[in-house]
Protein backbone atom coordinates (compact mmCIF):
# COMPACT_ATOMS: atom_id res chain seq x y z
CA UNK A 1 0.00 0.00 0.00
CA UNK A 2 2.91 2.42 0.72
CA UNK A 3 4.09 1.96 -2.87
CA UNK A 4 0.67 3.07 -4.04
CA UNK A 5 0.90 6.22 -1.93
CA UNK A 6 4.35 7.02 -3.32
CA UNK A 7 3.16 6.53 -6.90
CA UNK A 8 0.15 8.71 -6.22
CA UNK A 9 2.30 11.54 -4.86
CA UNK A 10 4.68 11.34 -7.83
CA UNK A 11 1.73 11.38 -10.20
CA UNK A 12 0.22 14.40 -8.51
CA UNK A 13 3.44 16.34 -8.65
CA UNK A 14 3.91 16.04 -12.40
CA UNK A 15 2.79 18.65 -14.84
CA UNK A 16 0.95 15.95 -16.78
CA UNK A 17 -2.12 16.60 -14.68
CA UNK A 18 -2.40 20.22 -15.78
CA UNK A 19 -5.60 21.17 -17.64
CA UNK A 20 -7.26 17.85 -16.94
CA UNK A 21 -9.81 19.30 -14.52
CA UNK A 22 -8.35 17.21 -11.72
CA UNK A 23 -9.45 18.32 -8.28
CA UNK A 24 -7.75 17.07 -5.14
CA UNK A 25 -8.99 17.25 -1.61
CA UNK A 26 -7.58 15.86 1.61
CA UNK A 27 -9.53 15.56 4.83
CA UNK A 28 -8.13 14.94 8.28
CA UNK A 29 -10.22 13.62 11.16
CA UNK A 30 -8.51 13.42 14.54
CA UNK A 31 -10.32 12.25 17.65
CA UNK A 32 -9.28 12.10 21.27
CA UNK A 33 -11.51 9.84 23.39
CA UNK A 34 -11.43 9.92 27.16
CA UNK A 35 -13.24 7.31 29.20
CA UNK A 36 -15.21 8.66 32.12
CA UNK A 37 -16.11 5.32 33.67
CA UNK A 38 -14.36 1.96 34.05
CA UNK A 39 -16.43 0.14 31.46
CA UNK A 40 -15.88 2.67 28.71
CA UNK A 41 -14.02 1.38 25.68
CA UNK A 42 -12.65 4.84 24.85
CA UNK A 43 -9.09 4.62 23.57
CA UNK A 44 -7.73 7.51 25.67
CA UNK A 45 -5.42 8.78 22.98
CA UNK A 46 -5.46 11.27 20.14
CA UNK A 47 -5.81 9.11 17.06
CA UNK A 48 -5.93 9.75 13.36
CA UNK A 49 -9.40 8.33 12.98
CA UNK A 50 -9.31 9.05 9.28
CA UNK A 51 -7.06 10.71 6.75
CA UNK A 52 -8.67 10.74 3.33
CA UNK A 53 -7.43 11.88 -0.04
CA UNK A 54 -9.96 12.25 -2.81
CA UNK A 55 -9.28 12.88 -6.46
CA UNK A 56 -12.05 13.65 -8.90
CA UNK A 57 -12.10 14.81 -12.50
CA UNK A 58 -13.92 14.45 -15.77
CA UNK A 59 -12.54 11.44 -17.63
CA UNK A 60 -14.01 12.44 -20.97
CA UNK A 61 -17.20 14.01 -22.37
CA UNK A 62 -19.35 11.25 -20.84
CA UNK A 63 -17.66 9.98 -17.68
CA UNK A 64 -16.34 11.44 -14.44
CA UNK A 65 -13.99 9.60 -12.12
CA UNK A 66 -13.55 9.52 -8.34
CA UNK A 67 -10.75 7.96 -6.32
CA UNK A 68 -10.73 8.09 -2.55
CA UNK A 69 -8.02 6.59 -0.40
CA UNK A 70 -8.23 6.56 3.39
CA UNK A 71 -5.94 5.76 6.27
CA UNK A 72 -7.35 4.76 9.64
CA UNK A 73 -5.77 4.08 12.99
CA UNK A 74 -6.82 0.56 13.94
CA UNK A 75 -5.46 -0.66 17.21
CA UNK A 76 -2.31 1.43 16.94
CA UNK A 77 -1.44 0.54 13.38
CA UNK A 78 -2.28 2.61 10.29
CA UNK A 79 -4.49 0.78 7.88
CA UNK A 80 -4.79 2.07 4.29
CA UNK A 81 -7.78 1.20 2.20
CA UNK A 82 -9.45 2.34 -0.97
CA UNK A 83 -12.82 3.74 -0.01
CA UNK A 84 -14.09 4.68 -3.42
CA UNK A 85 -12.92 4.12 -6.97
CA UNK A 86 -15.67 4.61 -9.50
CA UNK A 87 -16.79 6.19 -12.71
CA UNK A 88 -20.04 8.07 -12.88
CA UNK A 89 -22.13 9.74 -15.52
CA UNK A 90 -25.22 11.89 -15.84
CA UNK A 91 -24.81 12.01 -19.60
CA UNK A 92 -25.23 8.41 -20.65
CA UNK A 93 -29.00 8.10 -20.58
CA UNK A 94 -31.24 11.15 -20.20
CA UNK A 95 -32.58 11.44 -16.69
CA UNK A 96 -30.30 8.74 -15.27
CA UNK A 97 -27.21 8.77 -13.06
CA UNK A 98 -24.81 5.85 -13.02
CA UNK A 99 -21.98 4.79 -10.77
CA UNK A 100 -19.79 1.82 -11.56
CA UNK A 101 -17.00 0.78 -9.27
CA UNK A 102 -16.51 0.81 -5.54
CA UNK A 103 -18.43 3.40 -3.56
CA UNK A 104 -20.36 4.08 -0.37
CA UNK A 105 -23.77 2.50 -0.80
CA UNK A 106 -26.52 5.02 -1.47
CA UNK A 107 -28.63 3.98 1.52
CA UNK A 108 -29.96 5.83 4.52
CA UNK A 109 -28.58 9.19 5.54
CA UNK A 110 -25.14 8.78 7.15
CA UNK A 111 -23.89 6.03 4.87
CA UNK A 112 -24.05 8.37 1.89
CA UNK A 113 -21.56 10.85 3.29
CA UNK A 114 -17.98 10.74 4.47
CA UNK A 115 -17.38 10.43 8.19
CA UNK A 116 -15.52 13.74 8.38
CA UNK A 117 -18.68 15.45 7.05
CA UNK A 118 -20.99 14.02 9.73
CA UNK A 119 -22.66 16.51 12.09
CA UNK A 120 -21.47 14.48 15.08
CA UNK A 121 -18.34 12.58 16.07
CA UNK A 122 -19.27 8.98 16.73
CA UNK A 123 -21.64 6.85 14.66
CA UNK A 124 -25.00 6.17 16.31
CA UNK A 125 -25.46 2.73 17.88
CA UNK A 126 -27.83 1.51 15.17
CA UNK A 127 -25.39 2.56 12.44
CA UNK A 128 -22.43 0.88 14.19
CA UNK A 129 -24.33 -2.36 14.71
CA UNK A 130 -26.22 -2.69 11.45
CA UNK A 131 -23.72 -1.12 9.06
CA UNK A 132 -20.24 -0.15 10.27
CA UNK A 133 -18.28 2.30 12.42
CA UNK A 134 -17.91 4.45 9.34
CA UNK A 135 -19.95 3.28 6.36
CA UNK A 136 -20.62 0.33 4.11
CA UNK A 137 -18.89 0.47 0.76
CA UNK A 138 -18.72 -2.19 -1.89
CA UNK A 139 -18.08 -2.67 -5.60
CA UNK A 140 -20.95 -2.77 -8.05
CA UNK A 141 -23.36 -0.61 -9.95
CA UNK A 142 -25.74 2.08 -8.78
CA UNK A 143 -28.41 3.76 -10.84
CA UNK A 144 -30.47 6.76 -9.88
CA UNK A 145 -33.27 8.73 -11.45
CA UNK A 146 -35.83 11.41 -10.66
CA UNK A 147 -39.26 9.85 -11.09
CA UNK A 148 -41.60 11.71 -13.47
CA UNK A 149 -43.64 13.45 -10.78
CA UNK A 150 -44.34 17.12 -10.18
CA UNK A 151 -42.60 16.94 -6.83
CA UNK A 152 -39.12 15.66 -6.03
CA UNK A 153 -39.07 11.85 -5.89
CA UNK A 154 -35.71 10.25 -6.36
CA UNK A 155 -35.06 6.56 -6.75
CA UNK A 156 -31.67 4.92 -6.28
CA UNK A 157 -31.09 1.23 -6.94
CA UNK A 158 -27.82 -0.62 -6.50
CA UNK A 159 -26.36 -4.09 -6.74
CA UNK A 160 -22.91 -4.77 -5.38
CA UNK A 161 -20.75 -7.85 -5.06
CA UNK A 162 -21.64 -8.56 -1.42
CA UNK A 163 -18.33 -10.35 -0.76
CA UNK A 164 -17.89 -7.96 2.16
CA UNK A 165 -20.28 -5.99 4.34
CA UNK A 166 -19.44 -3.73 7.25
CA UNK A 167 -16.45 -4.62 9.40
CA UNK A 168 -14.27 -7.11 7.52
CA UNK A 169 -10.61 -8.06 7.83
CA UNK A 170 -10.34 -10.20 4.73
CA UNK A 171 -11.27 -9.95 1.06
CA UNK A 172 -14.53 -11.71 1.86
CA UNK A 173 -16.24 -14.64 0.18
CA UNK A 174 -18.76 -14.87 -2.61
CA UNK A 175 -22.28 -14.52 -1.20
CA UNK A 176 -25.27 -16.61 -2.13
CA UNK A 177 -27.12 -13.39 -2.99
CA UNK A 178 -25.19 -10.18 -3.63
CA UNK A 179 -25.95 -6.99 -1.77
CA UNK A 180 -28.92 -5.23 -3.33
CA UNK A 181 -30.59 -2.06 -2.18
CA UNK A 182 -32.88 0.78 -3.06
CA UNK A 183 -33.70 4.18 -1.63
CA UNK A 184 -36.67 6.37 -2.41
CA UNK A 185 -36.52 9.99 -1.28
CA UNK A 186 -38.75 13.00 -1.39
CA UNK A 187 -38.42 16.59 -0.25
CA UNK A 188 -40.67 19.20 1.28
CA UNK A 189 -39.71 22.85 0.67
CA UNK A 190 -40.14 25.38 3.42
CA UNK A 191 -38.23 28.28 1.94
CA UNK A 192 -35.65 28.23 -0.84
CA UNK A 193 -32.78 26.46 0.83
CA UNK A 194 -34.68 25.11 3.82
CA UNK A 195 -36.74 21.98 3.90
CA UNK A 196 -37.24 18.39 4.95
CA UNK A 197 -35.91 15.37 3.11
CA UNK A 198 -37.53 12.00 3.77
CA UNK A 199 -36.11 8.72 2.56
CA UNK A 200 -36.85 5.05 2.81
CA UNK A 201 -34.30 2.29 2.24
CA UNK A 202 -34.29 -1.44 1.72
CA UNK A 203 -31.15 -3.57 1.70
CA UNK A 204 -30.76 -7.34 1.36
CA UNK A 205 -27.91 -9.84 1.24
CA UNK A 206 -27.38 -13.55 1.74
CA UNK A 207 -23.76 -14.21 2.65
CA UNK A 208 -21.59 -17.21 1.82
CA UNK A 209 -22.62 -19.00 5.01
CA UNK A 210 -26.29 -18.69 4.13
CA UNK A 211 -26.95 -15.91 6.62
CA UNK A 212 -29.70 -13.71 5.22
CA UNK A 213 -29.81 -10.05 6.14
CA UNK A 214 -32.58 -7.60 5.44
CA UNK A 215 -32.55 -3.97 6.54
CA UNK A 216 -35.40 -1.51 6.18
CA UNK A 217 -34.84 2.11 7.08
CA UNK A 218 -36.47 5.51 7.26
CA UNK A 219 -34.39 8.66 7.30
CA UNK A 220 -35.30 12.29 7.65
CA UNK A 221 -33.31 15.50 7.55
CA UNK A 222 -34.68 18.93 8.31
CA UNK A 223 -32.55 21.99 7.69
CA UNK A 224 -33.40 25.64 8.27
CA UNK A 225 -30.85 27.99 6.79
CA UNK A 226 -30.61 31.74 7.19
CA UNK A 227 -27.83 33.02 4.92
CA UNK A 228 -24.55 31.52 5.98
CA UNK A 229 -26.06 30.06 9.11
CA UNK A 230 -27.76 26.68 9.33
CA UNK A 231 -29.96 27.67 12.23
CA UNK A 232 -31.56 24.28 12.74
CA UNK A 233 -30.54 20.81 11.72
CA UNK A 234 -32.64 17.84 12.78
CA UNK A 235 -31.80 14.43 11.38
CA UNK A 236 -32.94 10.94 12.27
CA UNK A 237 -32.77 7.36 11.07
CA UNK A 238 -34.91 4.40 12.03
CA UNK A 239 -33.64 0.98 10.99
CA UNK A 240 -35.02 -2.50 11.32
CA UNK A 241 -32.76 -5.48 10.72
CA UNK A 242 -33.64 -9.15 10.42
CA UNK A 243 -30.92 -11.78 10.35
CA UNK A 244 -31.80 -15.36 9.41
CA UNK A 245 -28.97 -17.63 10.42
CA UNK A 246 -28.07 -20.87 8.68
CA UNK A 247 -29.13 -22.65 11.87
CA UNK A 248 -32.75 -21.63 11.14
CA UNK A 249 -32.85 -19.17 14.03
CA UNK A 250 -33.27 -15.47 13.48
CA UNK A 251 -32.71 -12.14 15.15
CA UNK A 252 -34.79 -8.98 14.78
CA UNK A 253 -33.66 -5.58 15.99
CA UNK A 254 -34.91 -2.03 15.72
CA UNK A 255 -32.68 0.98 16.18
CA UNK A 256 -33.17 4.72 16.00
CA UNK A 257 -31.31 7.95 16.49
CA UNK A 258 -32.49 11.53 16.60
CA UNK A 259 -30.06 14.41 16.35
CA UNK A 260 -30.86 18.08 16.72
CA UNK A 261 -28.46 20.96 16.39
CA UNK A 262 -28.86 24.71 16.77
CA UNK A 263 -26.51 27.07 14.99
CA UNK A 264 -26.01 30.12 17.21
CA UNK A 265 -23.54 31.86 14.93
CA UNK A 266 -21.80 30.68 11.74
CA UNK A 267 -18.93 29.66 14.02
CA UNK A 268 -20.66 28.08 16.97
CA UNK A 269 -23.34 25.40 17.22
CA UNK A 270 -24.52 22.95 19.82
CA UNK A 271 -26.45 19.75 19.56
CA UNK A 272 -27.90 16.69 21.23
CA UNK A 273 -28.43 13.14 20.03
CA UNK A 274 -30.47 10.25 21.36
CA UNK A 275 -29.71 6.66 20.34
CA UNK A 276 -31.72 3.57 21.03
CA UNK A 277 -31.65 -0.07 19.97
CA UNK A 278 -33.86 -2.99 20.92
CA UNK A 279 -33.31 -6.69 20.27
CA UNK A 280 -36.72 -8.36 19.91
CA UNK A 281 -35.20 -11.83 19.74
CA UNK A 282 -33.22 -11.91 22.96
CA UNK A 283 -34.14 -14.93 25.06
CA UNK A 284 -32.63 -16.61 28.08
CA UNK A 285 -31.85 -20.30 28.43
CA UNK A 286 -35.43 -20.96 29.48
CA UNK A 287 -36.41 -19.47 26.12
CA UNK A 288 -38.25 -16.63 27.84
CA UNK A 289 -38.23 -13.33 26.02
CA UNK A 290 -35.83 -10.96 27.74
CA UNK A 291 -36.81 -7.32 27.87
CA UNK A 292 -33.89 -5.15 26.80
CA UNK A 293 -33.11 -1.70 25.50
CA UNK A 294 -29.95 0.18 24.65
CA UNK A 295 -29.98 3.93 25.26
CA UNK A 296 -27.46 6.62 24.50
CA UNK A 297 -27.37 10.38 24.82
CA UNK A 298 -24.73 12.73 23.48
CA UNK A 299 -24.29 16.44 24.09
CA UNK A 300 -21.95 18.33 21.83
CA UNK A 301 -20.59 21.76 20.95
CA UNK A 302 -18.86 22.63 17.70
CA UNK A 303 -16.74 25.58 16.79
CA UNK A 304 -15.56 26.32 13.27
CA UNK A 305 -13.46 29.10 11.85
CA UNK A 306 -14.72 28.24 8.36
CA UNK A 307 -16.49 25.32 6.68
CA UNK A 308 -13.02 23.76 6.29
CA UNK A 309 -11.98 23.50 9.92
CA UNK A 310 -14.03 22.51 12.90
CA UNK A 311 -13.52 21.32 16.43
CA UNK A 312 -16.15 19.44 18.33
CA UNK A 313 -16.44 18.46 21.97
CA UNK A 314 -18.95 15.81 22.90
CA UNK A 315 -20.00 14.03 26.02
CA UNK A 316 -21.85 10.75 25.68
CA UNK A 317 -23.37 8.16 27.92
CA UNK A 318 -24.60 4.80 26.66
CA UNK A 319 -25.99 1.84 28.57
CA UNK A 320 -27.98 -1.29 28.19
CA UNK A 321 -30.91 -2.19 30.37
CA UNK A 322 -31.89 -5.86 30.57
CA UNK A 323 -34.80 -6.94 32.71
CA UNK A 324 -34.48 -3.91 34.93
CA UNK A 325 -30.71 -4.19 35.38
CA UNK A 326 -28.41 -1.56 33.91
CA UNK A 327 -25.20 -2.84 32.38
CA UNK A 328 -22.47 -2.02 29.81
CA UNK A 329 -22.32 1.63 30.76
CA UNK A 330 -19.96 3.67 28.60
CA UNK A 331 -19.43 7.32 29.47
CA UNK A 332 -16.87 9.16 27.44
CA UNK A 333 -15.79 12.58 26.25
CA UNK A 334 -14.48 13.12 22.77
CA UNK A 335 -12.62 16.00 21.22
CA UNK A 336 -12.56 16.02 17.45
CA UNK A 337 -10.64 18.08 14.90
CA UNK A 338 -11.66 18.00 11.26
CA UNK A 339 -9.99 19.91 8.48
CA UNK A 340 -10.21 19.91 4.73
CA UNK A 341 -7.58 21.11 2.28
CA UNK A 342 -8.15 21.43 -1.43
CA UNK A 343 -11.33 21.64 -3.45
CA UNK A 344 -14.07 19.85 -1.57
CA UNK A 345 -17.01 18.73 -3.72
CA UNK A 346 -20.50 19.92 -2.84
CA UNK A 347 -22.44 17.98 -0.23
CA UNK A 348 -25.95 16.67 -0.66
CA UNK A 349 -28.69 18.32 1.40
Amino acid at each position, binding site marked *: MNKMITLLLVFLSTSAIADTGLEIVAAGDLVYSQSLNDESAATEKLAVRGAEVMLFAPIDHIWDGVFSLAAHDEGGSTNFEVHELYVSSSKLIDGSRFKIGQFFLGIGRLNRSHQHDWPFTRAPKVHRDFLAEEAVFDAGVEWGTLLPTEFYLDLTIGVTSGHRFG*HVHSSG*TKPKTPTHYMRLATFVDFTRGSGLELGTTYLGRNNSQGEKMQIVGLDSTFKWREGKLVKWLVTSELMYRKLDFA*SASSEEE*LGFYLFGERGWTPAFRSGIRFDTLKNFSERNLL*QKKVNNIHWGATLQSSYQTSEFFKTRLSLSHEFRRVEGLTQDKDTRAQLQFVFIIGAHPAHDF
Partner: protein
Amino acid sequence: MKNAFLPLLLVLILISACDITGKDTGANQAIDGTQVTTGLQNIDGKLSGSGRVVVSKSLGQVRGASSFHLRFKLQDEGEVRLSTYGRADLDQSVGVEFRRKAGLLEVKIFGGGVDTLILNRFENFQASGVLDFMIDVHNNHDDAAHLFIWRYTSDNSSDYGAQNAIVNTDFFKLPLDLDGLDFPEWHDLAVKGNGPFWGLDLIDAEVEIYKAGPPKDNS
Protein backbone atom coordinates in the same frame (compact mmCIF):
# COMPACT_ATOMS: atom_id res chain seq x y z
CA MET B 1 -43.23 22.81 9.80
CA LYS B 2 -45.74 20.16 10.81
CA ASN B 3 -44.22 17.83 8.20
CA ALA B 4 -41.04 17.72 10.26
CA PHE B 5 -42.93 15.78 12.89
CA LEU B 6 -44.24 13.03 10.62
CA PRO B 7 -41.21 10.75 11.01
CA LEU B 8 -41.26 11.37 14.73
CA LEU B 9 -44.91 10.40 14.85
CA LEU B 10 -44.13 7.18 13.02
CA VAL B 11 -41.36 6.42 15.47
CA LEU B 12 -43.61 7.07 18.43
CA ILE B 13 -46.21 4.71 17.01
CA LEU B 14 -43.60 2.02 16.48
CA ILE B 15 -41.92 2.30 19.81
CA SER B 16 -45.19 2.62 21.69
CA ALA B 17 -45.83 -0.95 20.59
CA CYS B 18 -42.90 -2.14 22.72
CA ASP B 19 -41.31 -1.36 26.04
CA ILE B 20 -38.50 1.16 25.84
CA THR B 21 -37.52 1.14 29.49
CA GLY B 22 -36.00 -2.35 29.65
CA LYS B 23 -38.03 -2.98 32.80
CA ASP B 24 -38.10 -6.25 34.68
CA THR B 25 -40.76 -8.54 33.27
CA GLY B 26 -39.80 -11.48 35.46
CA ALA B 27 -38.20 -13.44 32.60
CA ASN B 28 -34.96 -13.90 34.54
CA GLN B 29 -36.54 -14.55 37.91
CA ALA B 30 -36.37 -18.33 37.61
CA ILE B 31 -32.71 -18.18 36.70
CA ASP B 32 -30.07 -18.41 39.34
CA GLY B 33 -27.40 -16.77 37.14
CA THR B 34 -26.03 -20.03 35.74
CA GLN B 35 -27.10 -23.52 34.92
CA VAL B 36 -24.70 -26.06 36.30
CA THR B 37 -24.47 -29.60 35.10
CA THR B 38 -23.57 -32.54 37.34
CA GLY B 39 -19.95 -33.08 38.03
CA LEU B 40 -19.17 -29.46 38.83
CA GLN B 41 -19.03 -28.11 42.32
CA ASN B 42 -19.96 -24.50 42.87
CA ILE B 43 -18.50 -23.17 46.12
CA ASP B 44 -18.65 -19.39 46.69
CA GLY B 45 -18.92 -18.85 42.98
CA LYS B 46 -15.86 -21.00 42.20
CA LEU B 47 -16.44 -23.94 39.88
CA SER B 48 -14.35 -27.07 40.16
CA GLY B 49 -14.26 -30.59 38.80
CA SER B 50 -15.41 -31.76 35.39
CA GLY B 51 -18.65 -30.70 33.74
CA ARG B 52 -20.34 -27.90 31.94
CA VAL B 53 -21.80 -24.54 32.85
CA VAL B 54 -23.97 -22.56 30.46
CA VAL B 55 -24.75 -18.99 31.50
CA SER B 56 -28.49 -18.47 31.44
CA LYS B 57 -28.39 -14.82 30.50
CA SER B 58 -27.52 -14.47 26.86
CA LEU B 59 -24.87 -12.19 25.40
CA GLY B 60 -27.64 -10.12 23.77
CA GLN B 61 -27.07 -9.87 20.03
CA VAL B 62 -25.80 -12.89 18.13
CA ARG B 63 -23.87 -10.47 15.94
CA GLY B 64 -22.36 -8.68 18.88
CA ALA B 65 -19.03 -8.44 20.70
CA SER B 66 -18.10 -9.26 24.28
CA SER B 67 -15.16 -9.67 26.60
CA PHE B 68 -14.65 -12.62 28.94
CA HIS B 69 -12.52 -12.55 32.07
CA LEU B 70 -11.33 -16.05 32.98
CA ARG B 71 -9.24 -16.93 35.99
CA PHE B 72 -8.62 -20.64 36.52
CA LYS B 73 -6.27 -23.41 37.53
CA LEU B 74 -5.68 -26.66 35.64
CA GLN B 75 -4.74 -30.01 37.03
CA ASP B 76 -2.46 -32.15 34.94
CA GLU B 77 -4.30 -32.98 31.67
CA GLY B 78 -6.98 -30.52 32.82
CA GLU B 79 -8.89 -28.31 30.42
CA VAL B 80 -11.09 -25.22 30.35
CA ARG B 81 -13.01 -24.60 27.15
CA LEU B 82 -14.75 -21.24 26.74
CA SER B 83 -17.55 -21.41 24.15
CA THR B 84 -19.19 -18.18 23.13
CA TYR B 85 -21.97 -17.07 20.82
CA GLY B 86 -23.34 -20.58 20.59
CA ARG B 87 -26.73 -22.22 20.71
CA ALA B 88 -28.26 -23.25 24.04
CA ASP B 89 -26.20 -26.47 23.95
CA LEU B 90 -23.09 -24.42 23.04
CA ASP B 91 -23.16 -25.91 19.60
CA GLN B 92 -22.09 -23.61 16.71
CA SER B 93 -19.98 -21.49 19.02
CA VAL B 94 -16.53 -19.92 18.75
CA GLY B 95 -14.08 -19.88 21.59
CA VAL B 96 -10.82 -20.71 23.23
CA GLU B 97 -9.61 -23.90 24.86
CA PHE B 98 -6.83 -24.03 27.49
CA ARG B 99 -5.24 -27.36 28.32
CA ARG B 100 -2.39 -28.40 30.55
CA LYS B 101 -0.36 -31.13 28.88
CA ALA B 102 3.00 -32.48 30.00
CA GLY B 103 3.52 -29.37 32.12
CA LEU B 104 2.91 -26.96 29.26
CA LEU B 105 -0.07 -24.76 28.45
CA GLU B 106 -1.70 -25.53 25.11
CA VAL B 107 -4.17 -23.04 23.70
CA LYS B 108 -6.60 -23.56 20.84
CA ILE B 109 -9.03 -21.30 19.12
CA PHE B 110 -12.02 -23.09 17.65
CA GLY B 111 -15.17 -22.49 15.71
CA GLY B 112 -17.18 -23.88 12.83
CA GLY B 113 -15.48 -27.25 13.07
CA VAL B 114 -12.04 -25.66 12.87
CA ASP B 115 -9.46 -26.11 15.61
CA THR B 116 -6.28 -24.08 15.60
CA LEU B 117 -3.47 -24.91 17.91
CA ILE B 118 -1.40 -21.93 18.95
CA LEU B 119 2.08 -23.35 19.25
CA ASN B 120 4.46 -20.98 20.89
CA ARG B 121 2.83 -17.93 22.41
CA PHE B 122 2.08 -19.40 25.81
CA GLU B 123 5.46 -21.02 26.52
CA ASN B 124 6.19 -18.62 29.36
CA PHE B 125 2.99 -19.31 31.23
CA GLN B 126 3.16 -21.47 34.34
CA ALA B 127 0.63 -24.12 33.38
CA SER B 128 0.38 -25.33 36.96
CA GLY B 129 -0.33 -21.90 38.44
CA VAL B 130 -3.27 -19.51 38.40
CA LEU B 131 -4.03 -18.49 34.82
CA ASP B 132 -5.78 -15.17 34.32
CA PHE B 133 -6.90 -14.00 30.89
CA MET B 134 -9.08 -11.39 29.26
CA ILE B 135 -10.57 -12.63 26.00
CA ASP B 136 -12.47 -10.59 23.44
CA VAL B 137 -14.78 -12.23 20.94
CA HIS B 138 -16.08 -9.94 18.21
CA ASN B 139 -18.80 -12.00 16.59
CA ASN B 140 -20.04 -9.05 14.55
CA HIS B 141 -17.57 -9.07 11.69
CA ASP B 142 -18.74 -10.04 8.26
CA ASP B 143 -16.02 -12.64 7.88
CA ALA B 144 -14.68 -14.58 10.87
CA ALA B 145 -15.16 -13.74 14.50
CA HIS B 146 -12.23 -11.67 15.69
CA LEU B 147 -10.64 -13.00 18.86
CA PHE B 148 -8.06 -11.54 21.20
CA ILE B 149 -6.38 -13.08 24.22
CA TRP B 150 -4.63 -10.86 26.74
CA ARG B 151 -3.02 -11.48 30.07
CA TYR B 152 -5.48 -9.99 32.55
CA THR B 153 -4.32 -6.69 34.08
CA SER B 154 -7.48 -4.82 35.00
CA ASP B 155 -11.08 -4.29 33.90
CA ASN B 156 -10.16 -1.04 32.11
CA SER B 157 -10.41 -1.07 28.33
CA SER B 158 -7.45 1.27 28.05
CA ASP B 159 -5.17 -1.57 29.26
CA TYR B 160 -6.05 -3.72 26.26
CA GLY B 161 -5.26 -3.10 22.63
CA ALA B 162 -4.79 -4.87 19.33
CA GLN B 163 -1.04 -4.51 19.56
CA ASN B 164 -0.49 -5.87 23.08
CA ALA B 165 -2.61 -9.00 22.75
CA ILE B 166 -0.93 -12.37 23.16
CA VAL B 167 -3.19 -13.57 20.39
CA ASN B 168 -4.97 -11.47 17.82
CA THR B 169 -6.61 -13.51 15.07
CA ASP B 170 -5.88 -10.67 12.65
CA PHE B 171 -2.28 -11.68 12.74
CA PHE B 172 -2.00 -15.38 12.23
CA LYS B 173 -2.47 -18.13 9.71
CA LEU B 174 -3.55 -21.69 10.42
CA PRO B 175 -1.92 -23.57 11.95
CA LEU B 176 0.25 -21.07 13.74
CA ASP B 177 3.89 -20.52 13.04
CA LEU B 178 4.31 -23.14 10.39
CA ASP B 179 5.89 -20.77 7.91
CA GLY B 180 6.12 -21.67 4.30
CA LEU B 181 3.05 -23.85 4.28
CA ASP B 182 -0.02 -22.81 2.39
CA PHE B 183 -2.70 -22.47 5.03
CA PRO B 184 -5.63 -20.07 4.96
CA GLU B 185 -5.88 -17.13 7.30
CA TRP B 186 -8.41 -17.30 10.10
CA HIS B 187 -10.61 -14.64 8.58
CA ASP B 188 -10.86 -16.39 5.24
CA LEU B 189 -12.58 -19.29 6.98
CA ALA B 190 -15.46 -16.99 7.94
CA VAL B 191 -16.01 -18.79 11.23
CA LYS B 192 -18.59 -17.22 13.53
CA GLY B 193 -20.84 -18.22 16.36
CA ASN B 194 -24.51 -18.64 15.56
CA GLY B 195 -26.18 -18.15 18.88
CA PRO B 196 -26.34 -15.78 21.86
CA PHE B 197 -25.17 -18.08 24.68
CA TRP B 198 -21.87 -18.83 26.33
CA GLY B 199 -20.46 -21.25 28.81
CA LEU B 200 -17.54 -23.35 29.99
CA ASP B 201 -16.58 -27.01 29.78
CA LEU B 202 -14.20 -28.11 32.50
CA ILE B 203 -12.06 -31.22 32.83
CA ASP B 204 -10.17 -31.38 36.13
CA ALA B 205 -10.09 -27.62 36.50
CA GLU B 206 -11.03 -24.92 38.95
CA VAL B 207 -12.49 -21.65 37.71
CA GLU B 208 -12.44 -18.66 40.07
CA ILE B 209 -13.75 -15.97 37.75
CA TYR B 210 -15.84 -16.23 34.62
CA LYS B 211 -17.44 -12.96 33.69
CA ALA B 212 -18.72 -11.45 30.44
CA GLY B 213 -18.76 -7.74 29.66
CA PRO B 214 -18.49 -5.24 26.84
CA PRO B 215 -15.52 -5.75 24.48
CA LYS B 216 -12.19 -4.28 25.50
CA ASP B 217 -10.98 -3.52 21.97
CA ASN B 218 -12.91 -1.85 19.19
CA SER B 219 -10.93 -3.01 16.14
